[in-house]
């Protein structure tokens, strides 16, 4: 009758497996590589070329006022132009913020003719620790780190101290001794971003109404601080505004869309939505559009300042966007440069973010990322 199955198991299947696997992989590779044609060229503007208007500006009064110099830190003075700089990015460059941030660092290094080596930890903290150690073993003499977490940096800090490598952290902080463990932190004040979003919301609603918050990912300091600032300011300035709904959209467009769909079912009278990043805000707009709402029926305020969100202001869907400027290149290299010259560098550099609304969206759109 049939061939003995155990016999069959020995010969033909192996070959079939190889053939099929190869065929499947080839198909995927062909689809991936060949003759793809997208809808149209993606909108540019993300080359990280920081024009003067786009560049980060420091907040005058902010920061602790403490400073750090090479002498204080016990590091010899150096000339930035001769140094090899290592940059460790925390998250995949798959959202506009990270893309622009990395591009800005690379562009600035190129402009100054400084040698730069980079790594990306793809949101894996253990990976980022070993990334930074790798950068140092590849000869990085200065570090710029966009930390994924604030804690757990001891192994890196110890090694950097031994090798006398000064560290500048950007967008998030590393918990440690300023000037001992790192030179300076450059970033936005997320609580302040929340407060400014609250001001925009108060203005949009005339100080009265029901508001929902689309929270970012749980357990992230950006989420807690943007929420804290928003709630504080609403409580202080707009007692007529009630926060009736707080759910996480995980900082993704899909999350913002799904949660907003549920929201407008259960709270059809909602007046405003505060999205803690642009992606969730854009998702909220998709949901409102799908439910047949008109622009402006629900006022939306978001944080980030991406091109798409600023465009939605012009379309009337979004009331305002508070910027979180990711163009850290110039300031980060400036900090290393002055530190190397032996100057005093503030240990906390808080940047002043701009704001977009219907009045300035048209002219300021070129500054969005």
């Amino acid at each position, binding site marked *: 009758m049939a061939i003995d199955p155990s016999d069959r198991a020995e010969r033909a299947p192996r070959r079939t497996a190889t053939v099929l696997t190869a*065929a499947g992989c080839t198909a995927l590779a062909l689809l991936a590589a060949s003759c793809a*044609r997208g809808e149209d060229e993606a909108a540019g503007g993300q080359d990280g070329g920081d024009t003067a208007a786009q560049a980060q500006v420091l907040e005058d009064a902010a920061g602790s006022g403490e400073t750090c110099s090479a002498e204080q830190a016990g590091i010899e003075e150096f000339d930035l132009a001769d140094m090899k700089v290592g940059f460790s990015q925390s998250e995949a460059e798959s959202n506009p913020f990270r893309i622009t941030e990395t591009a800005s660092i690379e562009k600035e290094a190129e402009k100054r003719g400084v040698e730069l080596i980079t790594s990306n930890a793809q949101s894996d903290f253990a990976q980022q620790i070993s990334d930074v150690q790798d950068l140092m073993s590849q000869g990085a003499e200065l570090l710029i780190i966009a930390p994924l977490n604030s804690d757990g940096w001891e192994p890196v800090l110890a090694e950097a101290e031994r090798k006398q490598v000064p560290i500048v952290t950007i967008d998030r902080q590393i918990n440690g001794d300023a000037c001992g463990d790192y030179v300076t932190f450059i970033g936005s004040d997320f609580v302040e971003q929340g407060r400014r979003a609250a001001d925009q919301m108060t203005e949009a609603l005339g100080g009265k109404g029901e508001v929902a918050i689309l929270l970012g990912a749980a357990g992230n300091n950006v989420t807690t601080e943007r929420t804290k600032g928003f709630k504080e300011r609403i409580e202080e300035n707009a007692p007529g505004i009630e926060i009736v709904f707080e759910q996480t959209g995980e900082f993704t467009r899909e999350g913002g*869309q799904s949660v907003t769909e*549920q929201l407008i079912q*259960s709270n059809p009278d909602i007046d405003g939505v505060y999205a803690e990043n642009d992606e969730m805000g854009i998702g909220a707009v998709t949901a409102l559009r799908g439910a047949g709402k008109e622009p402006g029926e629900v006022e939306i305020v978001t944080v980030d300042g991406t091109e798409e969100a600023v465009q939605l202001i012009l379309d009337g869907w979004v009331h305002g966007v508070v910027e979180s400027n990711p163009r850290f290149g110039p300031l980060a290299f400036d900090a290393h440069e002055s530190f190397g010259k032996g100057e005093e560098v503030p240990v906390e550099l808080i940047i002043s973010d701009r704001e977009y609304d219907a009045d300035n969206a048209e002219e300021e759109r070129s500054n969005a990322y």
Partner: protein
Amino acid sequence: MTAIGMPAVRVDRTRAVPWLQEYGVYIGVAALLVFNLVFTPHFLSLENFRTQAVQVTPVLILSLGMALVIATGGIDLSVGSVMALSAAMISLYLGYGPVVAVLVALVAGAAAGAVNGALVAFAGVQAIVATLAMMIGGRGLSLVLLPQLDGIRNPGIRELGAGEALGVPYLVWISAVLVAVVVFVVRRTVFGRRIVAIGGNRRAGELSGLPVRRTLLVVYVLCGLLAAVAGVLATARLQASDPNSIGRLIELSAITAVVVGGTPLQGGRVRIAGTVAGAVLMQLLVSTLIKHDLPPSWTQIAQTAVIIAAVYVARERGRK
């Protein structure tokens, strides 16, 4: 509902447990519906049911393929990554028009499924390992192809995601048709019988001359194809290709729907209606917690409770 179930458990355990296995998931859905009707404002509206039906679509379609794979005693962890792959293909090939883009996305899904199937059926790699590899590799490949979110302006794709026919969204029509097809395949075709037979006892299937390997291969291809469909529909709904976050952890939701629906993980049995109810149950659960504005951590805890309850009931079955 539970009031009827509880005394039965106390009175006659041997009869109650199989009954719970059979109908537990439907009781769960009914209980949640009743709870929402009573306590959730604006629940009883056409709009609301439409929202829930649209939101459950991707998980529902994935769980159909997952049910077939699990019925053979396997598992497919790569479905979320295959969704990402098909989302990337849509964006890459939309220049040729929506039809070509969708077809390419489906071919990519089938190809990924074929690789899984070949490794499982012919190379003898364990399903969890083979599909884990595809889960990692597929996500990586789709991010290489499309490193960032890409908005979709094509009216055809947008219509697919937001449009409707006879008052029912296209997404819901498509998932209904797919459910009907899979039910037919499982109940009425030889292929359906083979799936269950292989899951029950692969060796016996081989000895009685069933084309075991071919059947397994087709099952994984189907699962990949369904995942690609889910990816296309999710992309159309979002009006953007987002390979980075589309389908993240969704394989776990699909497995949950299948298990809660009464299909045992060891295979040999498949319940499509239960799987559909399982997906609906999880969707209603999440929606209930969101609508009542409970902290997101509660959603995870509630999901855990449902899974443990389902696994506990399934354990009773294994013991007999």
